[in-house]
């Protein structure tokens, strides 16, 4: 039984992790082209660290897109060839900042 629970990807806890890290780094900040690479690396590093702390038998891919708010449109799409029972992905869209958008996606693949 414990095996069954461990096998599935947990959407809710993962979204919460992403939301916490993105907000911690980007809240109150203004888009700065010189700092953005630092922020996006930090977000991705921290999310990965939190996911790793959960100690689950998963491989992770974390991506982050940060774009300045300029009226321009942005779309993200993903397709995956994997085990639909055990693997999963989740995405968080951060838009409460006045100067930038951020989209962070986590893909988790069961080993």
């Amino acid at each position, binding site marked *: 039984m414990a095996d069954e629970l461990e096998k599935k990807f947990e959407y809710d806890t993962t979204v919460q992790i992403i939301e916490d890290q993105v907000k911690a780094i980007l809240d109150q900040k203004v*888009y700065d*082209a010189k700092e*953005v*690479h630092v922020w*996006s*690396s930090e*977000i*991705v*590093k921290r999310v*990965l660290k939190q*996911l*790793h702390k959960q100690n689950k038998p998963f*491989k*992770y*891919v*974390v*991506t*982050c*897109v*940060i*774009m*300045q*708010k*300029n*009226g*321009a*449109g*942005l*779309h*993200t*799409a*993903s*397709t*995956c*060839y*994997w*085990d*639909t029972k055990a*693997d999963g*992905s989740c995405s968080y869209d951060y838009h409460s900042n006045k100067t930038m958008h951020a989209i962070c*996606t986590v*893909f988790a*693949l069961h*080993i």
Partner: protein
Amino acid sequence: MADKDPNAYQDVDEDDEGADLQPTYQLGPLSGEKFMQHEVREVLKEVMNGKLKDMQYDDSKVKQMSLDISDEAKTKIRALGYKRYKIIIQTVMGQVKDQGAYVTSRCLWDVQKDNYASYWFKNDSLFCVCMVFGLYLE
């Protein structure tokens, strides 16, 4: 990719097809089967240049176009014949309007067996970044 070469090392469980894979007791991909970054990048280049060459950013069409690019890339990459690899493709498309944008990714995986490939395309009205991650299934 020919997979019935009688001289090559063949595994006992040879009928695995699609996602229902049995354990092979192999620890890693065989020498000819490792995820090749340059090969996948060429496929991405071909797909994106073909689909986006003269396209203008149009909000109603971009959504379907990003899904089409992801699907076509997935079909072509699967046709390259990487056995036991799970494939993830992410496509980001945006309008060009003098704004700054940054795309980052980081992964927790097996450095010797897993790999990624990416390609970006830009014209006067849109930009598109496509990332492909290949992860070995033990």
